[in-house]
C-alpha cells in the first residue's frame, strides 16, 4: 500500500489470544496485507488490557491503539470482552476529552475465522491514523528521540 | 406522500399508457409522482464497462435532483429502473466511478448514492401495501388469469436490484391478487424477451417471445402484464399473438376505477 506521506505512525494492537490473535494469524497465513505500522501484543483476553497500558502507549508516542477481542458472546472466558467494552467506552471518552481524538482508539471484535476482517480493520485503522496525523497529546516529550 | 419521478423517453411517446395509468392510480392511492425537471434519457442499457462514465451521468443527474429534494426516486420503465438503480449502486460503492462522475458533474455537494431508487411496484408493495390496494379496488378483475412477465431488467443482477427473488419473484403475482385476478406462474416469466436485439435480429427475438407466450398460455394465462415498453413491443411483435400483453398500470387503473379519467388525459 503506497503511503501518502513520510509519516510512519506507531500503532499498538492488543489482541486476545483466542480469537483476534488467531484472526491475525489467519490474516498472515492467507497473506492478507496490512501496514507494518501495526504491532501486536498478545494478551489472554481483551479484559486483560488495563486502561493504564493504553495511556502508557500514548505517553510513549503511540499514534493509535486498537483493542481486538472475541465477538460478544464468544469470549473464551465467557464475559471478558464485555468488561473490556465497558472499560474502553469510559476510557475512550476520557481520552477524547483530553484531546486524543476518538479515531485514535478503537475496539473491534475479530474472530479466529476473520482473517479478512482483521486485515481490513487494520488497513482502515492505519488510514484513519494517517488522516489524523501524528498524536501530540499525552506524549511525554522527554521520551522523544529527536 | 411525494416521490420524485423519472418517466424516461418511451413513457413520453410510445408508452404513454404506462405513465398516465400509473399517475392516475397514484393519485387515488394517495401518493404523488413529481416529475423531475430536465431529465435526460438514461440510455436504455446499463453501461457495463468499468471505465464508462459519461454514459452514466444522466442517471446521476436525476438521482442528484431527487437527493436535493429529499425524495425517493420512482421509476416505471424496467430499463430506466435498471440503469438508474445500478448507476446508483456504483455511486454508492465504486469509489473510482463516484469520483470521476462527480468530477464531471461539479455539483455543489458530491453525489454518493444517497437517493433511494424505487420501482413503482415497490411503492405499491412497500409503501402503500397490497392489502391497502385491495381495499381500494372497485372493479376487481375476477376470473382473469394473468401471467406476470418480469423479463430480466427488473430482477437481475439480484444483489444490486434487490427487487425480489430473481429466480422466483412474487411481487407481480401479489399485485395481480391485489387487483382481484388470479396469477399464473410459468417458468419463462424471467426469461429474456430478446431486448434490443429485436432491432436487427427479429427472428431470434421472435423465437424467445414465442417460448414465453407458449409457456404462459400452456399454464393457463389469458393475459400477460409487463412493466417494460420494450418487452411489450417484443411480445406483441414477435410473440405469435397467442396472448394479449398490457402494462400492469392499465389493469391497476381499471381495478381502481380510474381508467376512464386516465384515458381522457
Amino acid at each position, binding site marked *: 500500500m503506497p503511503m501518502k506521506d513520510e509519516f510512519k505512525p506507531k500503532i499498538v494492537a492488543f489482541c486476545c489470544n483466542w480469537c483476534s490473535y488467531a484472526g491475525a494469524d489467519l490474516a498472515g497465513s492467507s497473506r492478507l496485507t496490512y501496514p507494518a505500522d501495526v504491532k501486536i501484543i498478545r494478551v489472554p483476553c481483551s479484559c486483560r488490557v488495563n486502561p493504564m497500558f493504553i495511556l502508557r502507549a500514548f505517553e510513549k508516542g503511540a499514534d493509535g491503539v486498537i483493542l481486538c477481542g472475541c465477538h460478544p458472546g464468544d469470549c473464551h472466558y465467557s464475559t471478558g470482552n464485555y468488561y473490556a467494552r465497558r472499560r474502553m467506552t469510559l476510557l475512550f471518552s476520557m481520552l477524547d476529552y483530553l484531546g486524543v481524538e476518538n479515531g485514535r482508539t478503537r475496539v473491534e471484535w475479530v474472530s479466529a475465522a476473520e482473517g479478512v476482517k482483521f486485515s481490513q480493520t487494520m488497513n482502515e485503522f492505519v488510514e484513519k491514523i494517517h488522516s489524523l496525523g501524528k498524536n501530540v497529546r499525552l506524549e511525554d516529550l522527554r521520551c522523544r528521540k529527536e | 406522500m411525494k416521490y420524485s419521478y423519472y418517466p424516461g423517453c418511451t413513457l413520453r411517446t410510445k408508452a404513454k399508457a404506462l405513465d398516465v395509468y400509473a399517475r392516475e392510480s397514484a393519485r387515488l392511492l394517495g401518493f404523488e409522482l413529481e416529475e423531475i425537471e430536465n431529465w435526460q434519457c438514461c440510455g436504455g442499457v446499463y453501461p*457495463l464497462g468499468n471505465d464508462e462514465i459519461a454514459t452514466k451521468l444522466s442517471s446521476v443527474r436525476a438521482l442528484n435532483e431527487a437527493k436535493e429534494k429529499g425524495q425517493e426516486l420512482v421509476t416505471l420503465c424496467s430499463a430506466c429502473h435498471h440503469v438508474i438503480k445500478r448507476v446508483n449502486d456504483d455511486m454508492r460503492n465504486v469509489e473510482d466511478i463516484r469520483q470521476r462522475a462527480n468530477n464531471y458533474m461539479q455539483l455543489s455537494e458530491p453525489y454518493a448514492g444517497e437517493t433511494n431508487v424505487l420501482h413503482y411496484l415497490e411503492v405499491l408493495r412497500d409503501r402503500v401495501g397490497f392489502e391497502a390496494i385491495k381495499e381500494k379496488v372497485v372493479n376487481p378483475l375476477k376470473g382473469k388469469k394473468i401471467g406476470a412477465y418480469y423479463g*430480466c431488467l427488473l430482477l437481475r443482477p439480484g444483489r444490486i436490484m434487490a427487487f425480489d427473488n430473481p429466480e422466483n419473484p412474487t411481487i407481480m403475482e401479489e399485485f395481480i391478487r391485489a387487483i382481484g385476478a388470479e396469477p399464473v406462474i410459468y417458468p419463462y416469466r424471467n426469461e429474456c424477451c430478446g431486448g434490443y436485439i429485436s*432491432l436487427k435480429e427479429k427472428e431470434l427475438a421472435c423465437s424467445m417471445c414465442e417460448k414465453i407466450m407458449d409457456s404462459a398460455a400452456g399454464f393457463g394465462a389469458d393475459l400477460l402484464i409487463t412493466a417494460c415498453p420494450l418487452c411489450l413491443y417484443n411480445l406483441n411483435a414477435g410473440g405469435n399473438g397467442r396472448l394479449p400483453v398490457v402494462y400492469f398500470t392499465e389493469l391497476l387503473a381499471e381495478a381502481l376505477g380510474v381508467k376512464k379519467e386516465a384515458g381522457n388525459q
Partner: protein
Amino acid sequence: MNREKKQAELITEISGVNPLKCMKCGKCSASCPSFEEMDIKPHQFVSYVANENIEALVNSKSLWKCLSCFACVERCPRDVKPGKLIDAARQLVIRQRGQEYLSPDEIPALLDPELPQQLLVSAFRRYRR
C-alpha cells in the same frame, strides 16, 4: 508485449472480471438464451480471454448476440460475470474499429410505428459509441 495480450488485459480491465475465478462449470452457457446463435459460447469467453485468443473473440458473432439479460451473471456460482466480459470485448471492437454493426442509414428500414424509442436508444448504446 504483443497486441493480443494487451487487448486481453484491456478486456479484463474494462470488465473487471477475474478469469481465474472461473471453475468451468458451464452454468452460464446452460443459462444463455442466445446459446444456439453464438459461435463462441459464454463459458468459452473466459478461456479466450485467459488464453489471449482475442482476434477470434472480437471477430465472433457472439458479440452481437448477447442480450445483456444477465442470466449468466445471476447464476454464475463463482461470481465471474461472463456477460460483462463479452460486453467489454464488444466495447473494444467499437472503440477500435468504429461502429460497423449498426449504421444510422439502416434505421428507417427497420422502423415500424409501434417500435419504442427505448429499443433504438438501447441498440445504439450497445452497438455504437
